């Protein structure tokens, strides 16, 4: 299909690299609904897993399964070593000052809740301000709403402009009594990459802490703590090719030391009597109960896989593919892409005149196209954009321009179908 408005891109230089990458993901060979090749464009929801991760999970359960940090037997030592090796891998990948700063959680959501409880319950006073943005995922909104309700703190929002970028014109004013700023690094709806470093510098100047929700940016290897300079950072394993059920909270060690534990139970204690307990050192103070051991080890494998990629190539390819997809989608009559930030990732949300996202997604699925329809866990933002639901195609490193073309053809077919039926 030729489209004069779309950029002419020569993909041939990238092709061998992307084809080689695709061979690492067995699921990409799947057929759905009989004989339809799977076209997976729901990567902002969760990414597919490379063999390197699948094999590590299998090997752990086949050869080394044991609980960690207890037992003195061979398997327990192997499991503990592999578990702690993942912490080292994550710490060095993020550029953390110490592996003590890396807490394993169940995911981004738990990591943010951990800070809202462990830090917020202890240090927030009535009238203190918590600042989020209007483009937050519910996971980075509701824990702060709940904290505000518990403590009498006040929740405030950095506005989002019509183009889907943060309006920072009133930021200094908003920071006046703010103790915590919590913002997404990359929007799961608009794709926008936020100027985190700038926000952090201004927040620190006002004595506020900053938590970065890196759920969407970490998979694109955009997280460098030395550059971001944030106080907390959270992300999930499953969006960066790792297992579900595991995530990471990075916290400045001195803040983690000062915070209260979130959950109580095994592993997080130092001494326990009938009446009382003292806590283990960080990070163990925050890892109550048996952790998701295999998942943590799998996450380590996913991070090592990401580290093995040539990001100069993959960042250029991702940018080109995102730009191509937006241009192709916008060539469809009645289609509007929401999010025009110059610096953006591959989560592309759009609406189409007279075509409901549910109806579109349902029919595209019949063609093997996996996309997302709904409020994308960001109801206030979607409503602000004037919709109750949007459709989202989200790209990852293994997606191909042909898959974007198939999406565009699929959308045109669905449009024709409804046009015919509704006459």
């Amino acid at each position, binding site marked *: 299909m030729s489209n004069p408005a779309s950029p002419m891109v020569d993909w041939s230089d990238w092709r061998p690299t992307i084809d080689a990458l695709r061979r690492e993901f067995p699921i990409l060979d799947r057929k759905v609904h009989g004989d339809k090749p799977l076209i997976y464009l729901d990567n902002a929801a969760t990414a597919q897993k490379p063999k390197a991760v699948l094999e590590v999970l299998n090997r752990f359960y086949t050869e080394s399964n044991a609980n960690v940090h207890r037992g003195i037997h061979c398997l327990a030592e192997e499991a503990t070593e592999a578990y702690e090796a993942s912490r080292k891998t994550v710490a060095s990948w993020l550029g953390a000052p110490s592996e003590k700063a890396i807490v394993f959680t169940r995911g981004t959501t738990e990591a943010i809740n951990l800070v809202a409880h462990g830090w917020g319950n202890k240090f927030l006073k009535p009238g203190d301000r918590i600042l989020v943005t209007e483009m937050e995922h519910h996971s980075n909104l509701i824990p702060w709403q709940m904290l505000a309700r518990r403590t009498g703190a006040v929740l405030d929002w950095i506005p989002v402009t019509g183009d889907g970028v943060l309006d920072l014109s009133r930021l200094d004013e908003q920071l006046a009594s703010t103790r915590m700023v919590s913002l997404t690094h990359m929007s799961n709806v608009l794709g926008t990459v936020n100027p985190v470093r700038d926000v952090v510098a201004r927040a620190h100047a006002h004595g506020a802490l900053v938590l970065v929700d890196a759920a969407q940016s970490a998979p694109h290897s955009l997280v460098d703590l030395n550059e971001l300079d944030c106080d907390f950072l959270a992300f999930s394993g499953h969006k960066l090719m790792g297992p579900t059920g595991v995530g990471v909270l990075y916290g400045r060690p001195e803040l983690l030391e000062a915070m209260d534990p979130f959950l109580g139970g095994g592993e997080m204690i130092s001494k326990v009597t009938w009446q009382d307990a003292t806590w283990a050192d960080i990070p163990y103070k925050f890892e109550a109960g048996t952790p998701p051991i295999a998942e943590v080890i799998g996450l380590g494998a996913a991070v090592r896989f990401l580290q093995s990629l040539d990001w100069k190539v993959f960042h250029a390819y991702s940018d080109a593919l995102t730009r191509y997809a937006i241009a192709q989608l916008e060539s469809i009559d009645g289609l509007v892409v929401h999010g025009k930030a110059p610096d953006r990732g591959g989560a592309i949300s759009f609406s189409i005149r007279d075509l*409901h*996202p*549910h109806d579109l997604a349902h029919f595209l699925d019949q063609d093997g196209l996996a996309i997302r329809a*709904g409020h994308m866990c960001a109801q206030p933002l979607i409503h602000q954009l004037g919709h109750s*639901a949007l459709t989202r195609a989200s790209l990852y490193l293994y997606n191909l321009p042909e898959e974007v073309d198939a999406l565009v053809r699929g959308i045109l077919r669905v449009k024709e*179908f*409804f046009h015919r039926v*509704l006459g």
Partner: protein
Amino acid sequence: MSGPAPSIDADIRELVEEMRLLEDWQFRYEFIIELGQALPEFPEEWKTPDHEIQGCQSQVWVYPEFKDGRIYLRGTSDSLIVRGLVALLLKVYSGRTPGEILSHPPDFITEMGLDKHLLSTRSNGLNALIKRIFQTAEAAKA
């Protein structure tokens, strides 16, 4: 309405037959969507939180009335496929006695060759609509 309405069993049989005649899934959805288009207008003033069923992808509204021993249902959705399925469910369940409703679970959806997933997911509100219809029937019976 004139004349006695056909029984719930006869209506279900007829709908299942009609759907089975449509071999291609596209035609089945076309049929469903047309059913939805034929629904009487759902007045805007009825779209209150009481009558709203919020799914994460689409919204459903339902307005039940219990009159002369029967439950009358009006409904709609912002999604055309879901509105069609709402119409299908109302064709079966509206104007029935609570006993008729309660003795006819919506198994006919799968017999029609429609995606089971459409009703089992909580994302489009249909599952909750069925629950609401059955709760209304339970309450009316009590």
